[in-house]
Each structure stands twice: as C-alpha cells, then as structure tokens.
C-alpha cells in the first residue's frame, strides 16, 4: 500500500500535496491570517507551531474548509489540493472533507458504539458493499490507530466510555477509516497525559507513510519529535517555514528564535 523504502531524506523530493498562496482569513473585521504561502508535501508530517491566537488552527481549518461553517469567517486566496483549487465553485466541501480528514483538539467520539464511530465515514461515503467488508475496514482503521487490541471485545460499547487517550485514538481511527489523503490534527494531544501522547505520536509517525499529516501543536518538543517540516506562525503571519531541524537549530527569524527558546509565547 505504501512505499516502505521511502526515508526521511526523500522529504525534499516528495510531491507537493497542498499548496497555499496569498491566503487571507477574516473573522468579521479581524484579519486573522495574513498572506500565507505554504507548500505541504505528501507523506510527511508538517507541524504548525506558534503562540496562542497566532492563527495556526484557523489556517489548518482552511485546508478542509471547516471555516465555511463559521458565518462570519471569510477566506481569500488560493489553496490547491493536488493542483485543484479547493475553493472552485464546483468543489463540494463535503467531498473535500472526505479526502482531508480531521482530528480535533478535544476527543469528540460520537455517542454511539465504537464500531459505529469508525464505520460512520465509510458508511456515508458508500465505501463498502457488505457487512464483512465494513467489518474489515473498521478493523484495519482500529489497528491503524493502535486501538484494536484494546477494544476488539467491546466494539458495541459506547465510544464515549473509553479513556481520553483511547477516545482520541478512536477519533483518529474514525478519520483514517475514510482513507483520506491528508489528515489534519488540531492539537490532538493537548488534553492527554504523556503516555497517551507518546502512543499518538508513534501513531502519527506510522500514518505519514500513507498520507500527509498536518498537525497543530503547542509543544515544541512534539513538533521536533514527529515532524519533518515546521511552520512558525505569529500574529497571523507565517514567519518561517522549513525543515524541522533547521527551524529548531538555526532559525532565520528573530521571532522564531524567541519563541522556540521560550522568551516569548
């Protein structure tokens, strides 16, 4: 399914999955994202870091047009997924979101059974023909999220009954089940303890072999551990974007340096 020989050195040569040009976001009169240009590579982990309110989550939500659901929010500029403009009039945001999955800050499983949680996406997209096929998809997704062994005997119990970390992995399984091309994660570990966080970080590392992962995080250590590319946002501007190693060891901008050394933020 994926190319196991791919290594981190290939990142630079990887195809561009998402390219954003001159993206502006307004919340009413507030200019929340200012002129952001960014190229996100396929099959890599890209992290967005920056102080609270810098616009990193807002920008993340532009990529699958979740901002459409906010009445006062207005997005300008161009975002392309595989060269196709996601704001083109003929694009159905629902179809886009099937390709660009999302995991949220707070674990938000549906108040349904574990099975139904994972099966929901494949069901509404008509991805499976039979019950056994669906079972298979659910198992694969749960295995992919490292949750299978823990829940295989209680698939019909409510997803909300799991622990916080398990719930978040369930949400990842739910997102993975629709076989997205990009997975957006909005601070997926901020509500979790260190052990659950470590599990999810391992998971992300595995997921990048199937698709590109874009993760917003408050933890610079986390960004350094899991991502190959890092973007630093500050007051709505994309200040610096590059290889994670470079950003953390040799930042070009003073603001980046101040932030990663803990002087601001």
């Amino acid at each position: 399914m994926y190319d196991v020989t791919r290594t981190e050195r290939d990142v630079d040569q990887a195809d561009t999955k998402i390219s954003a040009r001159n993206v502006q976001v307004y919340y009413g009169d507030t200019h929340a994202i200012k002129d952001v240009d960014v190229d996100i590579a396929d099959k890599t982990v890209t992290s967005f870091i920056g102080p609270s309110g810098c616009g990193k989550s807002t920008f993340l939500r532009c990529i699958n047009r979740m901002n459409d659901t906010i009445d006062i929010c207005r997005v300008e500029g161009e975002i392309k997924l595989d060269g196709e403009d996601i704001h083109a009039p003929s694009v159905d945001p629902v179809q886009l979101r099937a390709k660009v999955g999302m995991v949220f800050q707070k674990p938000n499983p549906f108040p349904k059974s574990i099975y139904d949680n994972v099966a929901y996406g494949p069901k509404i997209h008509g991805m499976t023909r039979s019950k056994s096929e669906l079972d298979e998809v659910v198992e694969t997704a749960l295995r992919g999220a490292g949750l299978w062994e823990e829940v295989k005997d209680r698939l019909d119990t409510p997803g909300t009954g799991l622990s916080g970390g398990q719930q978040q992995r369930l949400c990842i399984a739910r997102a993975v089940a629709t076989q997205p091309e990009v997975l957006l994660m909005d601070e997926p570990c901020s509500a979790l303890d260190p052990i659950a966080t470590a599990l999810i970080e391992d998971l992300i590392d595995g997921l990048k072999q199937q698709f590109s992962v874009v993760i917003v995080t408050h933890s610079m250590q986390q960004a350094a551990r899991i991502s190959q590319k890092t973007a630093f946002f500050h007051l709505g501007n994309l200040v610096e974007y590059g290889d994670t190693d470079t950003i953390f060891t040799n930042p070009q901008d003073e603001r980046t340096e101040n932030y990663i050394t803990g002087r601001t933020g």
Partner: protein
Amino acid sequence: MTDATLNTGGESPRSSLLTQDAHTKRRNRAETRFRAYGLAAILIGLFFLIVLAVSIIRSGTPAFTRTVVDVEFTLTQTQIDEAESQLFKTAAYSGYFIDALKRQLDERGMDVAFDEDAIERIVGKPGSTIREYYRASPDRAGTPVAFELAASSRVDGYFNGRVTRDTIQDSRFLMEADLDLVDALAEAGIIRSSINWTFITGADSGVDNPGAAGIGASVVGSFFMMLVVLALSLPIGVAASIYLEEFAPQNRFTDLIEVNISNLAAVPSIVFGILGLAVFIQFAHLPQSAPLVGGLVLTLMTLPTIIISTRASLRAVPPSIRDAALGVGASKMQSVFHHVLPLAMPGILTGTIIGLAQALGETAPLLLIGMVGFVARGYPDGLAAGFMDPNSAMPAQIYTWAARADASFYEKAWGGIIVLLVFLLTMNILAIILRRRFERRW
C-alpha cells in the same frame, strides 16, 4: 519576604480550626437559613399538592358511582299500544313503572304508602327511558325486562352523603317522607349504588338528567385532538427548529422570526381560538365543534412551545459533535439527522409533552369554535368515526358541567377532572418511556 508576609497579620493569635470565627458562623447560618427556606418552599408545595389530590378524589369519586332503581316488569304489546295512543305517552309508561314497583314491594311484603309524585321525585321521569327502550327493541314486548333506572340527582346525593334529611327541609324536589321510601327501597335491594359506566363511556346529557351524563365522548374528542396536534406540531415544529437553528443564515429576517416565535408562545390562548374561528370555520368552512378544528387551533398554540424547546435542545448538543461529523465528510444534513437530532431527541420529547399537556388542558380556544355545551347525538356510533364529527373535549366538558345548576353535575365536573388527570398521566408516562428508549440507544 516570607517572614514579612506572615507578620502582617499583626498580633492576633493563630485561629484554631476547632472553633469557628464570627465570619464563618455567619456564613454557615446563612446557608442553614437558605436550606430551611428551600425545604419550607417544597413542603408548602407538597401540602397544596396533597390538598388538591385529596379534594379531587373526595369530590370526584361520587361521579363514578350512581344510584339505580332495579325494577323488573313486563309490558305487553297491548299496553304499549295503549300508551302510544295517549297524549302524554311517557306519563303512561311511568304509570306502568309505578304499578310494577308497587307489585314488587307487595311481593316482598312491604307496606309503604307512596304516590306517583314521590316516585317522580325519586326516579325522575322514568317514562321516557322506558319508552325509548321499547321503541329501540319492540320485540321485547311481552317478555320480562329488568330495568336499571337512574335515580334523581338528590337521591343520588342522599346515597353519596351530599344530601341529608336536614338539607332538604325546605325542598320541593325531595320530601323527607320520600327519604323514608328510599330507605325502605334500599333495604329491599330495589334501589342501590352501582358503578357508573355511563359516566366513563357516555356522552353529555341534558341539563335535567345528570344520571345519564358521561365523559367518554369528550375523552374520544380530546384523543382525536391530541392526535391532530401531535401529527402536525411535532414534524412542523421540529423541521422549523432545525432549519432555524442549523441552516438559516443569521440576518434581520431570521431575528424577526425568532422574536415572533417567542412572542407567540406568550399569546393568550383565546386569541388562537378567535383566529381558528375566523380562519378554519368562517373562511375554510370546516365543520364547527370538530376535533379536527380543535386540533388545528391547539396546534397553532403548541407550535411555539415545541419550537422553543426543540431549539434549546438542539443548541445544547455540543458543537464538537457537528465538527466531528463534518470532519469525516458528512454533509450538513447528515450531521444533523445522524448525530444532532438523536442527541436532542429527549429534550424535544420533553418539550412536546409539555406542549401537548398544555393543549390537552386548554378550554378557552375551544369555547370559540363551539366544542362546548354540546350534546352528542347518537354516541357512540356518531363519534368513533372521527375528526370531522361534532364532539367536545374534556376540559370544555368539565367547564360545561361546572356551570350547570344541578349539584350532581358539580360532582361530574370533579370526576371529569380525575379522568383528565389520568389521561395526562398516561401521556406523560408514555413520554418518559419513549425518552428512556431514545436515551438508551447509545
């Protein structure tokens, strides 16, 4: 620095945990007082509830019994023909009845003097009931028939304790001597109390015949009305709420609609009544007194309640659920119908049942569309048919009875209240069961 902060307290000794200082004491006293107020409020409420329940049950139970006179007699075809040939036909039948009663008393060896007037005061005017019977089934002529005739409302009251020998001192409607006869008849087993099935199954009666009055017809009427209200207001209300809450853009127009819905919920129900009269009866020419029209009027009244509570419960569904659904590529409608609506369902049901309960007890709008003071003809054949046939509703029926002069109707009104409350309780229990089922689905 630490020392300095410790010393700013001055010379006061360290307070002990074992004694409460003045401030704490005051605070605790305030809390104790508040708890006492709360408890008192609940006890007062409970007291009134008990008073209400006891008085309803005490005043209402007599409505479920009635006093009947058992007389068995045979009328031959000749007798019937003779009665039918007279000017006062029912009086002739009454005469037969009195003869039969006399015979029955003689057979038992009782020697009580009574006249026709006394019988009339005790049994009312039995002639018409007997005549009706033979007209309905002429083939019974010549065979013995056991009649169970309702006693007059005062005799009924005598059995229930409402009427005593003292209270009829000056009455022209029942003499003290009549009560001697009643006692004798009761002893002989001819006059007795029995369960009043007519009250539970029957329709309203004329003002001078409380013994034949029943709530059954109006229970059917209320039931049909509730069906109409439920079938219309739940889908319309929920659809309107979902659209307003989830899909409608936020602008002046939707703001205006919102304000209007809130205002509609506070509009007096009689206003809806006159609207129903103007629109449904005078304009649309729907039949008067029909449960369909009553249901339509009550739907108008119930809609705002349902919309407001449905919107509140939709709003109470965490936005993260909507995000989650949209995040996996569900459409707006899928996210609403698969996730938001099921979560809001218990709240919607609660709102609906409150709205229905309100509608069930509503009298004022029904007065205006003629669902009151109505005597059902041909019950039950004419009523079970349904929505377009003239009928009454429980609260309107109770209102009619309470307004009548005969004290026996007053009892019926209380009895009607009991039936209304039982109906309401059944509805609520049904709602609770439904809500449980919805909640248990996850």
